[in-house]
């Protein structure tokens, strides 16, 4: 399913549960959507870097199994954006569902 546009929201949501590196973020999005939200994982990184430029998240390096990895964590601005975007998304989805149910 095409998820263009909702990827930043999903990334912020995943990072709301704790820091993670790129692969884990992709894996969690796929797992939590039970495979419905499938996407090319290479597209994740420009989005992560953009969110970092905006101050929504920050990155740091940490060793994992002897390998240095770049982890991302949510910042205060990201938390605020997540709350606002989540409310907006729920309102949008609710409106679309109402229309679809009415036309069925």
């Amino acid at each position, binding site marked *: 399913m095409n998820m263009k546009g909702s*990827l*930043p929201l999903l990334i912020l949501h995943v990072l709301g549960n704790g820091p993670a*590196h*790129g*692969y884990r973020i*992709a894996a969690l999005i796929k797992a939590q959507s039970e495979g419905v939200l499938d996407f*090319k*994982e*290479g*597209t*994740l*990184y*420009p*989005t992560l*870097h*953009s*969110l970092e*430029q*905006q101050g929504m998240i920050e*990155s*740091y390096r940490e060793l994992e199994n002897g*390998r240095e*990895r*770049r982890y991302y964590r949510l910042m205060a601005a990201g938390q605020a954006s997540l709350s606002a975007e989540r409310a907006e998304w729920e309102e949008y989805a609710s409106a679309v569902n109402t229309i679809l149910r009415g036309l069925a």
Partner: protein
Amino acid sequence: MTSPDLTCWLKTAAHGLPTAAAARLCAELTDHYLDAYEYALEEGLDEATARRTALEALGNARALANEYQHTYHTRRRYRLAAVVGMSYPLLYGFSVSFNESVAGHLAFNLALFLPLLYIVYGFKTLLAVRPHGAPLYIYEQLIHTGIVAVSVPRLFGWVIYHRPLIAEATTRSFSDIHSFSELLMNAIALLGLFLIAGGFLLLGERALRVRESLYGLLKPSAVLGLVCGVGLGVYAIGTLGNNTLVRGPAEALAVMSGMLSVVVWSMIFFRAQGEIRQVA
């Protein structure tokens, strides 16, 4: 363990990106690939299939290269910025040395408009909506707006009077101004100088907060950004009060630190280039 296929994929995907961005992207994508590869092996796939599955999960390299180009400044723009950065003080120095000759006047006018040409060239990037609405950094906005504010009044002066007619651009001062339009042009250009100075100060301050070491050149780049900002600011204040004792040294400080900044950032560029070769 990386494969030749991954190396080729990374080269295609990161083609044309600024070296530092490409190096970071390649390192993260390599880690991602290795995780996916290990997971595929745990799932019971053989090595060749695991490699192919991990690579396919990343996506089409050419399509991603297009997406990356929209997110990051391209290497071409980066090189152009370095050329403009080098040419400006060189042309300026040449014009001062040969002030009375035609070549000196030509060099002076070219030096005045070079930054504006750079802005016009980069207009597409400036106006481009970056993915997910990522805004320009404040220092970028200040420097770009400042360059336009400094250059456009000069352009008007040049078109109307066949010389820049801007107080800070020649030996003239605000006391020589004899019309409201000239005062307005000078005021805009002066405001532009302050904006550029503020932009350089923010750039230096931001460099200090960067987590990466900028390939061992973090402090020189930050200090030069700050010195250039202070130099430009003092020069602008000196111009405002027509204080040649302040104006001359401040101008020299700003130009010298600007030139040295270009040298330092070129070194960062080449060091990053070396790192990306290692990653590949």
